[in-house]
């Protein structure tokens, strides 16, 4: 036993430099990740600015109760779920379809060009994407905003500013997301498709299967494991609608239909200085996310063991 221990120490001593290599990253994770995790306790306390974590008085579930009883609770939950589900139903299948179709393009140069173009929007920053959306939808100068009003006028309806119409927000959010992420999302499926056995495709062709049949019966099944894992991960993010995009697209007139949990946390926490309350809101969010992830993974494990995350 003692001998074993000294052996380990010797190994560590020999490779001391490797621990030095890890040190900056470890310090970074402690200072900028673990300290905030420790700070989540303020959700159960009355935190006052200037206090260190752990110095505040405990108040139990007060802040959670306040959130559940507030008028915003239902609104932000509904908006978050709406954006998330709409994004899942419309945004999830498209990269798969795009990958299957791109895979059938046999001219390599054409394929390359289309691929390069569809990846490009992914590298545009959120500020620019949302700025572009706002500009395009402007009723006086925007290319899409004017088109919408043109159509409405032809139908005898009055002009509108789409950006201040509440119900339109979710569509603006989801469709711009599809434009930005579909191409990049297909990368992982294209990689999986390169693993399809060419002999299998050839045999199917010999047997008279046409391209569509080969796509559905040979290529698509290869993608299923990847699809399942991506789907589980997406479900675990169900309530994680990030503030970055929503915050840039929303405005005060449509706050009721655009405020999601994360922007609510930002508004009440950083702007409104209700530190403990907003931490409680975001902790609630994380707990729900984790629960959904576990449930979905359990279901998947029941259905097919090898496709689950753990």
């Amino acid at each position, binding site marked *: 036993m003692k001998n074993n221990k000294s052996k*380990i120490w010797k*190994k560590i001593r020999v*490779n001391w430099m*490797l*621990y030095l290599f*890890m040190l*900056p*990253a*470890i310090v*970074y*994770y402690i200072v*900028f*990740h*673990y*300290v*905030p*995790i420790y*700070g*989540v306790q*303020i959700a159960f306390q009355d935190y006052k*600015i200037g206090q*260190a974590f752990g110095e505040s008085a405990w108040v139990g579930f007060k802040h959670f109760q306040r959130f559940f009883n507030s008028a915003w609770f239902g609104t932000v939950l509904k908006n978050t779920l709406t954006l998330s589900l709409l994004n899942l139903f419309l945004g999830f299948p498209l990269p798969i379809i795009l990958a299957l*179709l791109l895979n*059938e*393009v046999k001219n390599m140069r054409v394929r390359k060009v289309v691929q390069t*173009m569809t990846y*490009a*929007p992914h*590298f*545009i*920053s*959120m*500020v*620019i994407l949302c*700025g*572009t959306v*706002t*500009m395009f939808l*402007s009723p006086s100068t925007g*290319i899409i905003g004017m088109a919408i009003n043109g159509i409405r006028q032809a139908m005898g309806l009055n002009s509108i500013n789409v950006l201040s119409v509440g119900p339109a927000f979710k569509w603006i959010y989801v469709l711009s997301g599809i*434009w930005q992420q579909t*191409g990049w999302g297909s*990368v*992982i499926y294209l*990689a999986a498709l390169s693993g399809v056995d060419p002999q299998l495709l050839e045999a199917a062709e010999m047997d*008279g299967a*046409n*391209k*569509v049949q080969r796509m559905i019966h040979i290529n698509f099944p290869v993608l299923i494991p990847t699809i399942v894992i991506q789907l589980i991960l997406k479900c675990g993010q169900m309530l994680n609608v990030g503030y*970055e995009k929503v915050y*840039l697209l929303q405005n005060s007139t449509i706050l009721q239909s655009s405020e999601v949990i*994360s922007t609510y946390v*930002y508004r009440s*926490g950083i702007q409104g200085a209700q530190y403990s309350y*907003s*931490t409680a809101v*975001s*902790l609630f969010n*994380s707990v729900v996310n*984790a629960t959904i992830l576990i449930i979905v993974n359990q279901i998947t494990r029941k259905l097919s063991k090898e496709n689950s995350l753990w």
Partner: protein
Amino acid sequence: MERKRKWRNQCRADRIFDIVNGILMVFIFAVCFYPLYYIVVVSFSKQVVGSYLVPNGFTLAGYESIFQNKDVWSGYANTIFYTVAGVLASLVVTLPCAYALSRKDCVGRNLVMGFIMVTMYIGGGLVPSYINISNLGLINSRWAIILSSLTTAYNLILARSFFYTTIPDDLFEAARVDGCGNGRFFVQIVMPLSKPITAVMALYFGVARWNSYFTEMIYLRDLEKYPLSLILRRLLWSIEALEQMIEDGLIENVSHAMKEVELAGIMQYCLIVVSTIPMMIIYPFMQKYFAKGVMIGAVKG
């Protein structure tokens, strides 16, 4: 006979598929390409309206007023600073750590890996992080921007799997016999062999830094420290506010205000072009590295 007809039918089905697929590809290409093209066209126009394929009255007025604006210059300089300094710092933190984590003879590497991976699933969230930065005295400091996002668990895992598969164990053993320590081995042998992963990492960190705005928005107070993204956001919002004021009838000299909105409108298109150009220039060359990163990352663990 029967068989031959079947074969011919097959071919027709495939031909129809190819045509439909081709049309779809052209459509998809256009949907991705046209908005970007349109932005460039408008940025050279006198008027936003009517510039669909070519500028409606060619002018450089938008670019002139952008380059006369000192906030744009300082924003550009700040963005470049945050990107370059941030990428260098991220590489210095990420690559050595990932290499150490890839070494099978490094006792406790799984412990450290677990310690890092926990943060992929559990986090303090926005407000505790903000309080943390505030308690460290980093509010309104450029350090907050550089330090608060030094590395990510995802990139560490990516780099680790690269080292895992490309640097054989024997290589270090051989070097050790020749009296080469871990430090020299990493700098003189591992790094030169790791150009692809260094490129991927630099690009991932670089794109994230170049495009970031939220961290800067909550941690920075002074305009002169703002990156370009925040300058652009200010311009966008000021135009929206001005338009709203015109709509609400709060402005007396409407025609003058309209002119201002028009120029500011062109300016935002110009600013978008100016701030996206570096990305769009390097992007086609780097695309394969990006995609490669996704592939390495797709390998579990």
